[in-house]
C-alpha cells in the first residue's frame, strides 16, 4: 500500500532525459507546469499531453510507472471531476433528473481539470523518476544561489531537502515494518469503522515518531562528527555542467511552451 507512493522515487537509467542536467529538467518542468496553469484552452492541454508523452517515451520509463504515480491522487481526481460535473449549472444541459443537472460546460470543465492535474503529477513524477534526489537538490541549490545574496539560507534549505528526500524511503520502509508488527498483534488496519481506523493509527504513529526523532539525533551527531558547519566554503564533489543537449532541450521546450501560451492567448 505505502509502496504505491512513487513521488521522489528514482529509476536509474541512461536515456537522453536521464543525462540532461538536473537544472535543465527543473526549468523545463517549471515551464511545463506554468503552461498547464496558464492554458485555459483544451489545445494547450493537448499540446501538454503530447509534450509529456514524448518526454516519457524518450526517457524510457515504463508507462506503467507513470500510471502508478497517478494512483495516490485518484481520489483527488475523482472528487474534482464530480464537483465540477455536478456543481457547474451554466451552459447547455445534457442530462437532467430531479435536482441533478449536468451541463456541457460542466462536463468539459470536469475533464479539463482532471487532465490538468494528471499531467501535472505525471510531469513532476517524470522529473523525479529520471533525476536522483541528490542531483535534484544540488540543482535547486544552484538555481536558488542568487538568493543567498539577500541572506536567504539557500544551502541550509537544500541540505534539509536532501535529508528529507533521503529519508522518505527509509520512513516508508519503517512504517511498513511497524505496520506489519502491529498487524501481527491483531491491529485491524483494513475495514472497520472510522473510529477503529483512527485507533489503529496510534500504535503506528508513536513508534514511527520515536524512531524518526532517534534517527534525526543520530544523523545530527554523525554530521557534527564529520565537522559539518553549513555551506560556507564548502565545495561540491559533483559539478553540474550545461551541455549542448541541455541548451537544445531548453530552447526546444521553451519555444514549444511559449508557442502554446501564445496560441492560448490568441485563440
Amino acid at each position, binding site marked *: 500500500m505505502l509502496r504505491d507512493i512513487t513521488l521522489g522515487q528514482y529509476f536509474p537509467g541512461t536515456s537522453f532525459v536521464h543525462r540532461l542536467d538536473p537544472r535543465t529538467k527543473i526549468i523545463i518542468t517549471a515551464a511545463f507546469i506554468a503552461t498547464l496553469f496558464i492554458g485555459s484552452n483544451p489545445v494547450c492541454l493537448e499540446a501538454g499531453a503530447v509534450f509529456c508523452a514524448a518526454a516519457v517515451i524518450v526517457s524510457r520509463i515504463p508507462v506503467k510507472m507513470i500510471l502508478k504515480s497517478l494512483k495516490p491522487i485518484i481520489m483527488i481526481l475523482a472528487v474534482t471531476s464530480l464537483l465540477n460535473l455536478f456543481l457547474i449549472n451554466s451552459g447547455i444541459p445534457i442530462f437532467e433528473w430531479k435536482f441533478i443537472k449536468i451541463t456541457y460546460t460542466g462536463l468539459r470543465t470536469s475533464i479539463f481539470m482532471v487532465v490538468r492535474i494528471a499531467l501535472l503529477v505525471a510531469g513532476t513524477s517524470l522529473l523525479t523518476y529520471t533525476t536522483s534526489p541528490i542531483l535534484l537538490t544540488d540543482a535547486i541549490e544552484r538555481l536558488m544561489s542568487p538568493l543567498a545574496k539577500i541572506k536567504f539560507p539557500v544551502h541550509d534549505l537544500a541540505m534539509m531537502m536532501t535529508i528529507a528526500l533521503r529519508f522518505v524511503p527509509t520512513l516508508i520502509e519503517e512504517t511498513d*515494518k511497524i505496520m506489519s508488527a502491529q498487524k*501481527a*498483534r491483531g491491529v485491524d488496519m483494513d*475495514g472497520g469503522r472510522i473510529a477503529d481506523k483512527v485507533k489503529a493509527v496510534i500504535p503506528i504513529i508513536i513508534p514511527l515518531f520515536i524512531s524518526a526523532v532517534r534517527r534525526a539525533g543520530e544523523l545530527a551527531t554523525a554530521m557534527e562528527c564529520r565537522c559539518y558547519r553549513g555551506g560556507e566554503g564548502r565545495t561540491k564533489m559533483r559539478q553540474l555542467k550545461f551541455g549542448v543537449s541541455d541548451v537544445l532541450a531548453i530552447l526546444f521546450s521553451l519555444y514549444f511552451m511559449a508557442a502554446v501560451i501564445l496560441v492560448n492567448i490568441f485563440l
Partner: protein
Amino acid sequence: MAILKAEGLTYVYGSGTPFEKTAVDHVDIEIERGEFVGVIGHTGSGKSTLIQHFNGLLQPSSGKVFLDGKDIWEDKKNIRYIRFRVGLVFQYPEYQLFEDTVYKDIAFGPRNMGLPEDEIDRRVRQTAEAVGLSEDILERSPFELSGGQKRRAAIAGVMAMQPEVLILDEPTAGLDPKGRDKILSKIKEYHRNTGCTILLVSHSMEDVARYASKILVMNESKLFCYDEPSAVFGRYDEIIGMGLSVPQITRVFNKLKNRGIDLHEEVYTVKYAAELIANELRKRGKI
C-alpha cells in the same frame, strides 16, 4: 497432520518494476506440531519473507499456505484470527513498543483478541514472568528499559496471545551473549511448557544446534532442505558452500575425520561430542 504447510509458495517483491525480486521461490514444506524449527540461510535468502507468509502478513504471489490443513487465504476476513494463532516476533521488535507502560504494551495483543480483562491480566503477568521481566518493570515506561529488557517485553507482547505457532525473527540480534542465552532459554522453556510449535530464525549455528529439533535451510530464495539437525549438518560441504557455517564442534569432528579419526556420527552439540569422545577413548583403553 502438519500444523503449517506451504505449497509452491512464491513471493515476488515489486513485481513490474525494475527492482523486481523473487524472494521466495516455490517452497514446499510441512512442519509438524510441537516442532522447534531453526530457520537458517545467508543474508537475503528469504527467511524473513518466508515466515511472514505463515501468519498472513504477506500474501503469496502464487502458491498456498495451510494452517492446520486450512488454506489461510480461503477467507480473507479471517486473516486477523490467523495472526492470533500464529504469533510473529519481528527482527528488532522493540521498535513496535508504543504504550506508556510495559503492562499495557504486553496487553495490547490479548486486548485486540477481545479477551476479558481478568484473562488479559493473568496472561500479562504470566508471560512477563515467562520472559523474565519482574513485576515492578510492568508499570515502567517501555522506553526507559534497557535494550534486552525492551526485547523481552516485545516478545512477551506476542507470547501473551498464546499462539499455537510462535515465530521469532532473529530474536537475539544485537544482544550480548548473556542476554542471548537468557532469551533463548526462556523461549525454550515456553516451548516445553506449552507444547507450541516454534520457528526461530537465527544466524547462530550454535544456537540452532542447541535448541532446534528440525532445521530449515533457505538458499537463494529456495528451500535447500528441511531435516533433523544431524542430517543438515551432515551436509557439511554444501552448507559451507552456501556461506553458512556449522557448529564449532561439528567442524572439530570434521577435522578429526579428515585426520583419520572417524566416529561415524553427526555431532552438533558439545554434550553429545563429549560422550562420543569418552566412549571412543574407553574403547581404545585410554581411560
